[in-house]
Protein backbone atom coordinates (compact mmCIF):
# COMPACT_ATOMS: atom_id res chain seq x y z
CA UNK A 1 0.00 0.00 0.00
CA UNK A 2 2.69 2.41 1.08
CA UNK A 3 4.79 1.48 -1.91
CA UNK A 4 1.82 2.10 -4.19
CA UNK A 5 1.29 5.53 -2.68
CA UNK A 6 4.97 6.37 -3.01
CA UNK A 7 4.96 5.03 -6.56
CA UNK A 8 2.02 7.17 -7.59
CA UNK A 9 3.59 10.17 -5.87
CA UNK A 10 6.81 9.63 -7.80
CA UNK A 11 4.80 9.20 -11.00
CA UNK A 12 2.88 12.40 -10.36
CA UNK A 13 6.02 14.43 -9.70
CA UNK A 14 7.57 12.95 -12.82
CA UNK A 15 4.43 14.05 -14.68
CA UNK A 16 4.68 17.56 -13.27
CA UNK A 17 8.34 17.91 -14.16
CA UNK A 18 9.35 21.19 -15.68
CA UNK A 19 12.94 21.94 -14.88
CA UNK A 20 15.99 23.03 -16.81
CA UNK A 21 17.99 20.95 -14.33
CA UNK A 22 16.21 17.82 -15.54
CA UNK A 23 17.85 17.96 -18.96
CA UNK A 24 16.68 15.33 -21.41
CA UNK A 25 18.18 16.46 -24.70
CA UNK A 26 21.59 17.50 -26.07
CA UNK A 27 20.74 21.20 -26.20
CA UNK A 28 19.32 21.15 -22.70
CA UNK A 29 22.51 19.41 -21.50
CA UNK A 30 24.62 22.19 -23.01
CA UNK A 31 22.51 24.86 -21.36
CA UNK A 32 22.69 22.99 -18.07
CA UNK A 33 26.47 22.63 -18.40
CA UNK A 34 26.83 26.32 -19.16
CA UNK A 35 24.75 27.10 -16.09
CA UNK A 36 26.89 24.78 -13.99
CA UNK A 37 30.15 26.41 -15.19
CA UNK A 38 28.78 29.84 -14.36
CA UNK A 39 27.52 28.70 -10.99
CA UNK A 40 30.75 26.99 -9.93
CA UNK A 41 33.14 29.63 -11.26
CA UNK A 42 31.19 32.64 -10.06
CA UNK A 43 30.43 30.88 -6.77
CA UNK A 44 34.15 30.32 -6.30
CA UNK A 45 34.94 33.95 -7.07
CA UNK A 46 32.22 35.05 -4.66
CA UNK A 47 33.76 32.91 -1.90
CA UNK A 48 37.25 34.28 -2.61
CA UNK A 49 36.02 37.88 -2.55
CA UNK A 50 34.16 37.32 0.70
CA UNK A 51 37.21 35.59 2.18
CA UNK A 52 39.48 38.48 1.16
CA UNK A 53 37.05 40.90 2.72
CA UNK A 54 36.90 38.92 5.94
CA UNK A 55 40.64 38.28 6.40
CA UNK A 56 41.55 41.91 7.30
CA UNK A 57 38.68 41.93 9.80
CA UNK A 58 40.02 38.77 11.43
CA UNK A 59 43.61 40.05 11.54
CA UNK A 60 44.81 41.81 14.64
CA UNK A 61 44.24 45.50 14.48
CA UNK A 62 47.55 47.36 14.23
CA UNK A 63 46.17 50.67 15.35
CA UNK A 64 45.27 53.63 13.18
CA UNK A 65 48.28 55.73 14.28
CA UNK A 66 50.73 53.40 12.55
CA UNK A 67 49.26 54.04 9.13
CA UNK A 68 47.47 57.35 9.27
CA UNK A 69 45.32 58.31 6.32
CA UNK A 70 46.62 61.88 6.05
CA UNK A 71 47.96 62.96 2.67
CA UNK A 72 51.42 63.86 3.95
CA UNK A 73 52.07 60.29 5.04
CA UNK A 74 52.55 58.73 1.62
CA UNK A 75 52.86 54.93 1.57
CA UNK A 76 56.31 53.67 0.80
CA UNK A 77 57.33 52.98 -2.78
CA UNK A 78 57.37 49.26 -2.08
CA UNK A 79 53.77 49.34 -0.84
CA UNK A 80 52.79 51.41 -3.90
CA UNK A 81 54.33 48.85 -6.24
CA UNK A 82 52.70 45.94 -4.39
CA UNK A 83 49.32 47.69 -4.55
CA UNK A 84 49.66 48.46 -8.25
CA UNK A 85 50.71 44.86 -8.89
CA UNK A 86 47.73 43.29 -7.11
CA UNK A 87 45.18 45.70 -8.64
CA UNK A 88 46.66 45.11 -12.10
CA UNK A 89 46.62 41.33 -11.66
CA UNK A 90 43.02 41.36 -10.37
CA UNK A 91 41.92 43.50 -13.34
CA UNK A 92 43.61 41.18 -15.83
CA UNK A 93 42.11 38.07 -14.22
CA UNK A 94 38.62 39.70 -14.13
CA UNK A 95 38.79 40.73 -17.77
CA UNK A 96 40.04 37.26 -18.80
CA UNK A 97 37.28 35.51 -16.83
CA UNK A 98 34.60 37.80 -18.25
CA UNK A 99 35.87 37.27 -21.79
CA UNK A 100 36.01 33.55 -21.14
CA UNK A 101 32.41 33.55 -19.95
CA UNK A 102 31.31 35.61 -22.95
CA UNK A 103 33.06 33.18 -25.29
CA UNK A 104 31.55 30.03 -23.73
CA UNK A 105 28.10 31.72 -23.68
CA UNK A 106 28.30 32.61 -27.35
CA UNK A 107 29.61 29.17 -28.27
CA UNK A 108 26.85 27.47 -26.25
CA UNK A 109 24.22 29.78 -27.80
CA UNK A 110 25.47 28.99 -31.32
CA UNK A 111 25.55 25.26 -30.61
CA UNK A 112 22.04 25.01 -29.18
CA UNK A 113 20.55 27.00 -32.05
CA UNK A 114 21.28 24.12 -34.45
CA UNK A 115 21.28 20.31 -34.28
CA UNK A 116 24.31 18.07 -34.61
CA UNK A 117 22.76 16.46 -37.69
CA UNK A 118 20.01 18.04 -39.72
CA UNK A 119 19.32 14.97 -41.80
CA UNK A 120 16.21 13.00 -40.92
CA UNK A 121 14.85 15.89 -38.88
CA UNK A 122 11.17 16.04 -38.06
CA UNK A 123 9.57 19.44 -38.74
CA UNK A 124 6.81 20.63 -36.43
CA UNK A 125 5.10 23.98 -36.85
CA UNK A 126 3.94 25.62 -33.66
CA UNK A 127 1.70 28.67 -33.66
CA UNK A 128 1.16 30.58 -30.45
CA UNK A 129 -2.35 31.81 -29.74
CA UNK A 130 -3.92 33.53 -26.78
CA UNK A 131 -3.70 31.12 -24.87
CA UNK A 132 -2.94 27.82 -26.48
CA UNK A 133 -0.55 26.20 -28.95
CA UNK A 134 -1.51 25.04 -32.42
CA UNK A 135 0.67 22.14 -33.55
CA UNK A 136 1.09 20.97 -37.12
CA UNK A 137 3.34 18.15 -38.30
CA UNK A 138 4.70 19.41 -41.61
CA UNK A 139 5.11 17.02 -44.50
CA UNK A 140 5.65 17.37 -48.24
CA UNK A 141 2.84 14.88 -48.67
CA UNK A 142 -0.33 16.79 -47.76
CA UNK A 143 -2.05 13.60 -46.64
CA UNK A 144 0.64 13.17 -43.99
CA UNK A 145 0.10 16.53 -42.29
CA UNK A 146 -1.26 16.04 -38.80
CA UNK A 147 -2.83 18.83 -36.76
CA UNK A 148 -3.19 18.84 -33.00
CA UNK A 149 -2.97 21.28 -30.11
CA UNK A 150 -1.15 21.80 -26.83
CA UNK A 151 0.66 18.49 -27.08
CA UNK A 152 3.70 17.41 -29.07
CA UNK A 153 4.75 13.86 -29.60
CA UNK A 154 8.34 13.41 -30.69
CA UNK A 155 10.45 10.32 -31.39
CA UNK A 156 13.33 9.71 -28.99
CA UNK A 157 16.77 10.44 -30.40
CA UNK A 158 15.61 12.23 -33.54
CA UNK A 159 16.26 15.97 -33.98
CA UNK A 160 13.05 17.98 -34.26
CA UNK A 161 12.90 21.35 -35.94
CA UNK A 162 10.34 23.70 -34.46
CA UNK A 163 9.10 26.37 -36.83
CA UNK A 164 7.28 28.84 -34.65
CA UNK A 165 5.06 31.80 -35.29
CA UNK A 166 2.14 33.52 -33.61
CA UNK A 167 -1.39 34.53 -34.53
CA UNK A 168 -1.70 37.44 -32.15
CA UNK A 169 1.01 38.63 -29.77
CA UNK A 170 4.55 37.48 -29.01
CA UNK A 171 4.69 34.15 -27.20
CA UNK A 172 7.71 32.09 -26.29
CA UNK A 173 8.12 28.34 -26.70
CA UNK A 174 9.96 26.89 -23.74
CA UNK A 175 10.33 23.27 -22.74
CA UNK A 176 13.08 23.55 -20.11
CA UNK A 177 14.01 19.87 -20.21
CA UNK A 178 14.68 20.00 -23.94
CA UNK A 179 15.80 23.46 -24.98
CA UNK A 180 16.01 27.13 -24.09
CA UNK A 181 13.34 29.68 -24.94
CA UNK A 182 12.41 30.70 -28.46
CA UNK A 183 10.03 33.57 -29.14
CA UNK A 184 7.05 33.05 -31.42
CA UNK A 185 6.52 36.29 -33.29
CA UNK A 186 3.49 37.30 -35.39
CA UNK A 187 4.16 37.34 -39.15
CA UNK A 188 7.63 35.93 -38.65
CA UNK A 189 8.96 32.40 -38.44
CA UNK A 190 11.57 31.48 -35.85
CA UNK A 191 13.25 28.10 -35.77
CA UNK A 192 14.39 26.02 -32.86
CA UNK A 193 15.78 22.52 -32.45
CA UNK A 194 14.75 20.08 -29.79
CA UNK A 195 15.65 16.48 -29.20
CA UNK A 196 14.79 14.06 -26.44
CA UNK A 197 17.31 11.41 -25.50
CA UNK A 198 14.98 9.44 -23.31
CA UNK A 199 11.25 8.75 -23.34
CA UNK A 200 9.14 10.84 -21.02
CA UNK A 201 6.67 13.67 -20.68
CA UNK A 202 8.12 17.13 -20.51
CA UNK A 203 6.10 20.17 -19.61
CA UNK A 204 6.52 23.39 -21.55
CA UNK A 205 5.29 26.85 -20.81
CA UNK A 206 4.84 30.16 -22.60
CA UNK A 207 7.82 32.24 -21.52
CA UNK A 208 6.83 35.64 -22.82
CA UNK A 209 4.03 37.51 -21.08
CA UNK A 210 1.14 37.33 -23.53
CA UNK A 211 -1.95 38.54 -21.72
CA UNK A 212 -4.44 37.53 -19.08
CA UNK A 213 -3.93 33.78 -19.23
CA UNK A 214 -0.19 33.66 -19.91
CA UNK A 215 0.25 31.51 -16.81
CA UNK A 216 -2.23 28.94 -18.14
CA UNK A 217 -0.55 28.49 -21.48
CA UNK A 218 1.29 25.23 -21.09
CA UNK A 219 1.98 22.32 -23.37
CA UNK A 220 3.27 18.78 -23.01
CA UNK A 221 5.98 17.17 -25.04
CA UNK A 222 5.66 13.40 -25.09
CA UNK A 223 8.88 11.71 -26.17
CA UNK A 224 8.39 8.09 -27.16
CA UNK A 225 10.21 5.36 -29.10
CA UNK A 226 10.11 5.74 -32.87
CA UNK A 227 7.56 2.95 -33.56
CA UNK A 228 5.22 4.29 -30.91
CA UNK A 229 5.57 7.79 -32.33
CA UNK A 230 4.83 6.62 -35.87
CA UNK A 231 1.75 4.80 -34.62
CA UNK A 232 0.60 7.94 -32.83
CA UNK A 233 1.20 10.12 -35.91
CA UNK A 234 -0.63 7.68 -38.18
CA UNK A 235 -3.54 7.71 -35.78
CA UNK A 236 -3.59 11.51 -35.67
CA UNK A 237 -3.89 11.54 -39.47
CA UNK A 238 -7.16 9.62 -39.34
CA UNK A 239 -10.50 11.39 -39.40
CA UNK A 240 -12.72 11.02 -36.36
CA UNK A 241 -14.71 7.78 -36.28
CA UNK A 242 -18.46 8.48 -36.48
CA UNK A 243 -20.16 7.43 -33.26
CA UNK A 244 -22.40 4.35 -33.42
CA UNK A 245 -24.34 4.57 -30.17
CA UNK A 246 -27.48 6.77 -30.28
CA UNK A 247 -26.46 8.84 -27.24
CA UNK A 248 -23.09 9.64 -28.80
CA UNK A 249 -24.72 10.38 -32.13
CA UNK A 250 -26.95 12.80 -30.27
CA UNK A 251 -23.81 14.33 -28.75
CA UNK A 252 -22.31 14.80 -32.19
CA UNK A 253 -25.52 16.47 -33.33
CA UNK A 254 -25.32 18.83 -30.35
CA UNK A 255 -21.74 19.72 -31.25
CA UNK A 256 -22.42 20.23 -34.95
CA UNK A 257 -25.57 22.28 -34.38
CA UNK A 258 -24.06 24.70 -31.91
CA UNK A 259 -21.52 27.47 -31.93
CA UNK A 260 -18.69 24.95 -31.31
CA UNK A 261 -18.23 24.56 -35.05
CA UNK A 262 -17.45 28.24 -35.55
CA UNK A 263 -14.04 27.80 -33.92
CA UNK A 264 -13.27 24.07 -33.71
CA UNK A 265 -12.69 21.48 -36.39
CA UNK A 266 -13.32 17.75 -36.19
CA UNK A 267 -12.00 16.01 -39.29
CA UNK A 268 -14.62 13.72 -40.76
CA UNK A 269 -17.50 16.01 -39.80
CA UNK A 270 -18.75 19.36 -41.05
CA UNK A 271 -17.05 21.15 -38.16
CA UNK A 272 -14.25 23.09 -39.78
CA UNK A 273 -13.54 26.12 -37.59
CA UNK A 274 -9.92 27.13 -37.74
CA UNK A 275 -9.50 29.63 -34.91
CA UNK A 276 -9.69 27.22 -31.97
CA UNK A 277 -7.83 23.97 -31.25
CA UNK A 278 -8.53 21.08 -33.63
CA UNK A 279 -10.59 18.50 -31.71
CA UNK A 280 -10.35 15.51 -34.06
CA UNK A 281 -8.39 13.47 -31.51
CA UNK A 282 -9.28 15.52 -28.48
CA UNK A 283 -9.78 12.57 -26.14
CA UNK A 284 -6.26 11.27 -26.79
CA UNK A 285 -4.68 14.36 -25.22
CA UNK A 286 -3.42 14.63 -21.66
CA UNK A 287 -4.91 18.00 -20.80
CA UNK A 288 -7.59 20.49 -21.79
CA UNK A 289 -7.39 24.27 -22.01
CA UNK A 290 -3.64 24.24 -22.77
CA UNK A 291 -2.39 22.28 -19.78
CA UNK A 292 -4.83 23.89 -17.37
CA UNK A 293 -6.89 20.82 -16.50
CA UNK A 294 -6.39 17.07 -16.70
CA UNK A 295 -8.43 15.69 -19.56
CA UNK A 296 -11.40 13.95 -18.02
CA UNK A 297 -15.15 14.12 -18.34
CA UNK A 298 -15.79 16.18 -15.23
CA UNK A 299 -13.20 18.81 -16.09
CA UNK A 300 -14.49 19.00 -19.64
CA UNK A 301 -18.03 19.54 -18.38
CA UNK A 302 -16.82 22.41 -16.19
CA UNK A 303 -14.77 23.86 -19.01
CA UNK A 304 -17.69 23.86 -21.47
CA UNK A 305 -20.19 25.14 -18.92
CA UNK A 306 -18.14 28.08 -17.69
CA UNK A 307 -14.75 28.58 -19.34
CA UNK A 308 -14.35 32.06 -17.83
CA UNK A 309 -14.42 30.56 -14.36
CA UNK A 310 -11.47 28.29 -15.17
CA UNK A 311 -9.48 30.59 -17.42
CA UNK A 312 -10.71 34.16 -17.04
CA UNK A 313 -10.39 36.01 -20.31
CA UNK A 314 -10.14 32.90 -22.49
CA UNK A 315 -11.47 33.23 -26.02
CA UNK A 316 -13.38 29.96 -25.58
CA UNK A 317 -16.98 31.12 -25.96
CA UNK A 318 -19.56 30.34 -23.30
CA UNK A 319 -21.97 28.31 -25.42
CA UNK A 320 -25.22 27.45 -23.66
CA UNK A 321 -25.82 23.69 -23.75
CA UNK A 322 -29.19 22.37 -22.63
CA UNK A 323 -28.93 20.23 -19.52
CA UNK A 324 -30.21 17.13 -21.32
CA UNK A 325 -27.59 17.63 -24.03
CA UNK A 326 -24.57 17.90 -21.72
CA UNK A 327 -24.11 14.17 -21.09
CA UNK A 328 -24.43 13.16 -24.76
CA UNK A 329 -21.98 15.91 -25.73
CA UNK A 330 -19.44 14.73 -23.14
CA UNK A 331 -19.83 11.12 -24.24
CA UNK A 332 -19.33 12.13 -27.84
CA UNK A 333 -16.18 14.09 -26.96
CA UNK A 334 -14.84 10.96 -25.29
CA UNK A 335 -15.12 9.05 -28.58
CA UNK A 336 -12.65 11.44 -30.24
CA UNK A 337 -9.71 9.16 -29.45
Amino acid at each position, binding site marked *: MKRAVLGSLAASTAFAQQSALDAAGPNAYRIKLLGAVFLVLLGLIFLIVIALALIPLARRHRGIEQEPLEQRNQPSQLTERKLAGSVGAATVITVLILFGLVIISVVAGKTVSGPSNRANALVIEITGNQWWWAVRYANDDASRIAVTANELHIPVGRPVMIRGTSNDVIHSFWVPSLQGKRDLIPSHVTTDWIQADRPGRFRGQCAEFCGLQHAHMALWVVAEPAEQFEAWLTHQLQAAIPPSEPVKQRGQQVFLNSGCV*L*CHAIQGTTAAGQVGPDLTHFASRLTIAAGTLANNKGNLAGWIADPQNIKAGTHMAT*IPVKSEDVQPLLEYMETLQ
Partner: protein
Amino acid sequence: MRLLAVGCCLIALAACQRERRDLRPSPTSLAVFGSAGRESELQPGGAQPDLNVTNPYQGSAAAIAEGQRLFSWYNCAGCHANGGGAIGPPLIKEEWTYGGEPANLFDTIVKGRPNGMPSWGGRIPEYQIWQIVAFVRSLNNKEPKSATPARNDTIQQDPGALLPKSGGGVTK
Protein backbone atom coordinates in the same frame (compact mmCIF):
# COMPACT_ATOMS: atom_id res chain seq x y z
CA MET B 1 -86.20 6.93 -61.09
CA ARG B 2 -86.70 10.42 -59.65
CA LEU B 3 -86.17 9.03 -56.21
CA LEU B 4 -82.87 7.58 -57.36
CA ALA B 5 -81.73 10.96 -58.79
CA VAL B 6 -82.62 12.78 -55.58
CA GLY B 7 -80.81 10.10 -53.59
CA CYS B 8 -77.67 10.48 -55.74
CA CYS B 9 -77.75 14.26 -55.27
CA LEU B 10 -78.03 13.85 -51.51
CA ILE B 11 -75.13 11.43 -51.48
CA ALA B 12 -73.04 13.81 -53.62
CA LEU B 13 -73.92 16.69 -51.33
CA ALA B 14 -72.85 14.73 -48.31
CA ALA B 15 -69.42 14.24 -49.93
CA CYS B 16 -68.82 17.99 -49.94
CA GLN B 17 -66.95 19.19 -46.88
CA ARG B 18 -67.06 22.82 -46.16
CA GLU B 19 -63.79 24.45 -45.21
CA ARG B 20 -63.70 25.43 -41.58
CA ARG B 21 -62.90 29.03 -40.91
CA ASP B 22 -60.80 29.77 -37.86
CA LEU B 23 -62.00 33.18 -36.93
CA ARG B 24 -59.72 33.35 -33.93
CA PRO B 25 -56.00 32.77 -34.67
CA SER B 26 -54.26 30.24 -32.48
CA PRO B 27 -52.24 31.84 -29.68
CA THR B 28 -49.03 30.44 -31.07
CA SER B 29 -49.37 32.39 -34.28
CA LEU B 30 -49.94 35.75 -32.66
CA ALA B 31 -46.32 36.91 -32.78
CA VAL B 32 -45.67 40.18 -34.59
CA PHE B 33 -42.23 40.12 -36.07
CA GLY B 34 -40.19 43.17 -35.36
CA SER B 35 -39.73 45.89 -37.89
CA ALA B 36 -36.05 44.95 -38.06
CA GLY B 37 -36.79 42.28 -40.64
CA ARG B 38 -37.94 44.71 -43.30
CA GLU B 39 -36.56 44.61 -46.76
CA SER B 40 -38.30 47.80 -47.84
CA GLU B 41 -38.12 51.26 -46.44
CA LEU B 42 -41.77 51.73 -47.30
CA GLN B 43 -44.06 50.73 -44.52
CA PRO B 44 -47.57 51.47 -43.38
CA GLY B 45 -47.86 53.97 -40.58
CA GLY B 46 -44.91 56.15 -41.45
CA ALA B 47 -41.42 56.09 -39.96
CA GLN B 48 -40.77 53.44 -37.38
CA PRO B 49 -40.43 54.64 -33.83
CA ASP B 50 -37.16 54.30 -31.95
CA LEU B 51 -36.45 50.85 -30.74
CA ASN B 52 -36.23 50.32 -27.03
CA VAL B 53 -33.73 47.53 -27.20
CA THR B 54 -30.26 48.71 -26.24
CA ASN B 55 -26.91 47.06 -26.57
CA PRO B 56 -25.68 46.00 -23.11
CA TYR B 57 -22.15 46.65 -24.36
CA GLN B 58 -22.84 50.18 -25.57
CA GLY B 59 -19.73 52.24 -24.99
CA SER B 60 -17.56 49.38 -23.79
CA ALA B 61 -14.05 49.47 -25.23
CA ALA B 62 -13.40 45.85 -24.22
CA ALA B 63 -16.55 44.69 -25.99
CA ILE B 64 -15.64 46.62 -29.14
CA ALA B 65 -12.20 44.97 -29.14
CA GLU B 66 -13.77 41.55 -28.62
CA GLY B 67 -16.24 42.32 -31.40
CA GLN B 68 -13.39 43.17 -33.70
CA ARG B 69 -11.72 39.82 -32.96
CA LEU B 70 -14.99 37.94 -33.51
CA PHE B 71 -15.63 39.88 -36.73
CA SER B 72 -12.50 38.29 -38.13
CA TRP B 73 -12.86 34.91 -36.33
CA TYR B 74 -16.38 34.32 -37.62
CA ASN B 75 -15.27 35.50 -41.03
CA CYS B 76 -17.56 38.51 -41.33
CA ALA B 77 -14.58 40.01 -43.14
CA GLY B 78 -14.94 37.27 -45.76
CA CYS B 79 -17.83 39.22 -47.31
CA HIS B 80 -17.77 42.67 -45.74
CA ALA B 81 -13.98 43.04 -45.86
CA ASN B 82 -12.87 45.31 -43.04
CA GLY B 83 -16.09 47.27 -43.27
CA GLY B 84 -15.56 48.68 -46.72
CA GLY B 85 -17.64 45.99 -48.39
CA ALA B 86 -16.67 43.35 -50.92
CA ILE B 87 -19.18 40.75 -52.05
CA GLY B 88 -21.22 41.87 -49.07
CA PRO B 89 -22.35 45.45 -48.53
CA PRO B 90 -20.11 47.96 -46.80
CA LEU B 91 -20.68 48.47 -43.11
CA ILE B 92 -19.44 52.02 -43.14
CA LYS B 93 -22.59 53.62 -44.34
CA GLU B 94 -24.93 56.33 -43.21
CA GLU B 95 -28.13 54.53 -44.14
CA TRP B 96 -28.45 50.84 -43.56
CA THR B 97 -30.61 48.65 -45.74
CA TYR B 98 -32.02 46.86 -42.72
CA GLY B 99 -31.54 49.57 -40.14
CA GLY B 100 -28.45 50.66 -38.26
CA GLU B 101 -29.78 50.69 -34.70
CA PRO B 102 -28.21 48.06 -32.40
CA ALA B 103 -31.42 46.04 -32.41
CA ASN B 104 -31.52 46.11 -36.23
CA LEU B 105 -27.95 44.87 -36.47
CA PHE B 106 -28.67 42.18 -33.88
CA ASP B 107 -31.63 41.02 -35.95
CA THR B 108 -29.63 41.08 -39.15
CA ILE B 109 -26.95 38.88 -37.64
CA VAL B 110 -29.37 36.46 -35.99
CA LYS B 111 -31.84 36.14 -38.86
CA GLY B 112 -29.65 36.68 -41.87
CA ARG B 113 -30.71 38.71 -44.89
CA PRO B 114 -31.56 37.91 -48.52
CA ASN B 115 -28.80 37.68 -51.09
CA GLY B 116 -26.20 36.05 -48.95
CA MET B 117 -26.13 37.20 -45.32
CA PRO B 118 -26.21 33.93 -43.36
CA SER B 119 -28.34 33.51 -40.30
CA TRP B 120 -26.06 33.19 -37.29
CA GLY B 121 -28.85 32.45 -34.86
CA GLY B 122 -28.30 29.25 -32.91
CA ARG B 123 -24.55 29.53 -33.42
CA ILE B 124 -23.17 32.72 -31.93
CA PRO B 125 -24.22 33.29 -28.33
CA GLU B 126 -26.14 36.48 -27.66
CA TYR B 127 -23.36 38.27 -25.76
CA GLN B 128 -20.98 37.84 -28.66
CA ILE B 129 -23.56 39.14 -31.13
CA TRP B 130 -23.86 42.30 -29.05
CA GLN B 131 -20.07 42.60 -29.05
CA ILE B 132 -20.01 42.35 -32.84
CA VAL B 133 -22.82 44.92 -33.03
CA ALA B 134 -20.80 47.28 -30.85
CA PHE B 135 -17.77 46.85 -33.11
CA VAL B 136 -19.74 47.35 -36.33
CA ARG B 137 -21.35 50.49 -34.97
CA SER B 138 -17.97 51.76 -33.86
CA LEU B 139 -16.93 51.62 -37.52
CA ASN B 140 -19.57 54.25 -38.16
CA ASN B 141 -18.57 56.40 -35.21
CA LYS B 142 -21.79 55.39 -33.50
CA GLU B 143 -19.94 54.38 -30.36
CA PRO B 144 -18.56 56.99 -27.98
CA LYS B 145 -15.10 58.25 -28.81
CA SER B 146 -13.88 57.24 -25.35
CA ALA B 147 -14.48 53.59 -26.22
CA THR B 148 -13.11 53.45 -29.73
CA PRO B 149 -9.43 53.31 -30.61
CA ALA B 150 -8.00 56.59 -31.83
CA ARG B 151 -6.30 54.77 -34.66
CA ASN B 152 -7.96 51.70 -36.09
CA ASP B 153 -6.15 48.60 -37.28
CA THR B 154 -7.95 48.67 -40.60
CA ILE B 155 -10.33 51.22 -42.01
CA GLN B 156 -10.63 54.54 -40.30
CA GLN B 157 -14.03 56.18 -40.55
CA ASP B 158 -14.09 59.87 -41.28
CA PRO B 159 -17.48 61.39 -40.37
CA GLY B 160 -17.35 63.65 -43.39
CA ALA B 161 -16.82 60.77 -45.73
CA LEU B 162 -19.84 58.55 -45.11
CA LEU B 163 -20.96 56.81 -48.23
CA PRO B 164 -24.08 58.23 -49.88
CA LYS B 165 -27.36 56.57 -49.17
CA SER B 166 -27.39 54.46 -52.29
CA GLY B 167 -23.67 53.91 -52.69
CA GLY B 168 -21.57 50.79 -52.49
CA GLY B 169 -22.15 47.10 -52.15
CA VAL B 170 -24.02 44.60 -54.23
CA THR B 171 -27.23 44.71 -52.28
CA LYS B 172 -28.57 48.18 -51.80
